[in-house]
């Protein structure tokens, strides 16, 4: 031990005073790919819209006004609260939340199963979980559409077995959208929980059982607190991309209703061509995501102290 200490000290010597310089690539990266685009978006959301896309460099609240205040179809009624966009956001949040819960319900037992296999078998199971990721998300979503359509293989199989007598109408429903989101993001739930469960000391479960704890109590009071960081990470990793998803709603849900993602896309690529409004909607989405992450960070730091 005595010999190790100076060696450690000399190693940290190398880095002393070089911190800022070594951080430079990170700062440049964050500056170019995070601060700059988000800053641009923030600025654009306060500019005046140009007809058919583009902006005029005059400051205005118009985009946020349009988001939150309803002035009627012709824009001359007294303002009341605009529920259209709040409704679209709420639908996306609800949908992302449901997808997260579903992923958790299936993902936790899956992760538990993998983590409790022989150490040599675990990589194989993990490998199986990641295989679908070798295929592009779009192609997987289109395949899902082929599988569940009215005369697709799923319905044909069920008809053949006689379980159903008429094809199930699955395509263009919320169920299909949930299926798509669940399928797309499940591994994001499994992997973080797996890494948390893998570090769990199973002697703790035995100790709890010795103290007459039943399985449910052990799960609640012993296991969950230990693997909670993995669950929270998994939930965030599923919830955040689901919130902005538009492939599944468009392809599997029939694009009948705007999601946050497609609403923003429409402002830039659709006939509306209202860039400041698209930027404002994106800023509001960003704020919601930031709020969720901040709440999580605060809860964690409270726990730590």
């Amino acid at each position: 031990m005595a010999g190790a200490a100076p060696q450690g000290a000399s190693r940290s010597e190398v880095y002393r005073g070089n911190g800022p310089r070594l951080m430079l690539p990170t700062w440049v990266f964050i500056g170019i790919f995070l601060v700059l685009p988000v800053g641009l978006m923030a600025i654009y959301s306060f500019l005046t819209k140009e007809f058919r896309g583009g902006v005029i460099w005059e400051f205005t609240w118009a985009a946020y006004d349009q988001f939150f205040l309803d002035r009627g179809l012709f824009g001359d009624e007294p303002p009341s609260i605009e529920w259209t966009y709040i409704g679209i956001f709420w639908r996306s949040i609800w949908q992302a939340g449901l997808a997260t819960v579903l992923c958790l319900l299936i993902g936790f037992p899956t992760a538990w199963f993998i983590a409790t296999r022989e150490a040599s078998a675990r990589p194989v199971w993990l490998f199986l979980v990641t295989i679908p990721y070798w295929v592009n998300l779009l192609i997987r979503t289109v395949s899902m559409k082929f599988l569940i359509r009215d005369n697709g293989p799923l319905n044909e199989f069920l008809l053949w077995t006689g379980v159903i007598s008429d094809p199930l109408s699955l395509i263009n429903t919320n169920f299909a959208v949930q299926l798509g989101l669940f399928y797309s993001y499940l591994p994001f739930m499994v992997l973080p929980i797996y890494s948390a469960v893998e570090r769990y000391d199973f002697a703790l479960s035995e100790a709890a059982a010795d103290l007459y704890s039943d399985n449910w109590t052990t799960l609640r009071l012993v296991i969950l607190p230990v693997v909670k960081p993995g669950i929270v990470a998994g939930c965030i990793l599923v919830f955040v991309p689901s919130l902005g998803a538009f492939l599944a709603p468009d392809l599997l849900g029939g694009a009948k209703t705007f999601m946050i993602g497609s609403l923003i896309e429409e402002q830039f690529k659709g006939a509306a061509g209202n860039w400041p409004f698209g930027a404002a909607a994106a800023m509001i989405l960003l704020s919601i995501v930031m709020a969720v992450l901040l709440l999580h960070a605060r809860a964690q730091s409270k726990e730590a102290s």
Partner: protein
Amino acid sequence: MKTFLTTTAVALALAGAASAEGKLTIYHWFEYIPQELLDKFSAEYDVEVTMDTYDSNEALLAALKAGRLGSYDVAVPGDYMVKILGDEGMLDTFTPEEMPNLGNIEDQWMDVDFDPGRKSSIPYQWGSTSFSVNTEMYDGPRDSLGLIFEPPAELAGKINVLDTSGETLTLASMYAGIPQCTSDRDQLKALNALVQGAKDSWASFGSDVAKDVLVSGDAAAGMIWSGFSAKARSEGAPVEYVFPKEGMIVWMDNVVLLKDAPNRENALKFMNFLLEPENAAAVTNYAQYTAGVKGVGEFLDPEVATSPESNPPADVKGVFVQACPEEVQVMYDAIWTELKK
């Protein structure tokens, strides 16, 4: 919409790409030009051709506005979008001397509202937008746009509409007998009520899937472009294109010379090349619309020349989609948002 189909197709010259004389960068619709034609141009003029694709006129405008102007030589906007691009100052002009085949353009397409005298554009293909039915799934009467906008009960949940506000709201207006770009409040309210009422019967909104949903049977009736429907039929699906008594949308796509084109010379060569009857016919044989070029007849596949989709009855009314002024367009945007909220 649908960035996912906005794939990038790169067409390299047949042999010795590195030794090509020059380059040409095309910004084009998806699935709208045969690869063989691009190869032919590459070989004939020793030009390396690159193509990116888009899936709506609005997406083209958005990309050009977002800074892509100056990286493409030619694009293929629809009629009203030619006017918008022109008004935005995004088009270059050419002289008749620079376009020797200008005289090949059919007379009716020479002096068009959106580009009088053809100073920046040449016809690419024209066709119509209406709807088709899958006759295996629906065999009732089909002569009216009412099938889409006030559908019979048996079509409920079996209808696809194009996911573009311009075409969908224009066809709805034609059905309701409302003029385009109206600012009359009662008319707009009636239009709003019409599409709101129809929406419950609609299964999906989709443009690039318009053919697929009819062929697969996900939809029994769906708004579609004439040539897209012809393709479905030629693939063997029981899909019938309808010429409604209320009329249909007529449109023309045009090849335009973009401002600040990096390869202006090759762009002009390419446009002139597309005005050769044989080449225009090659596009028509592929896309199954109609060329606006004289003398294509002898090069057309017989089944394309006589296809029902491209030969509407003489008494069917066709109208171009108009580009509405800003104060009117915001109301149509509001109706569309209200519809999809």
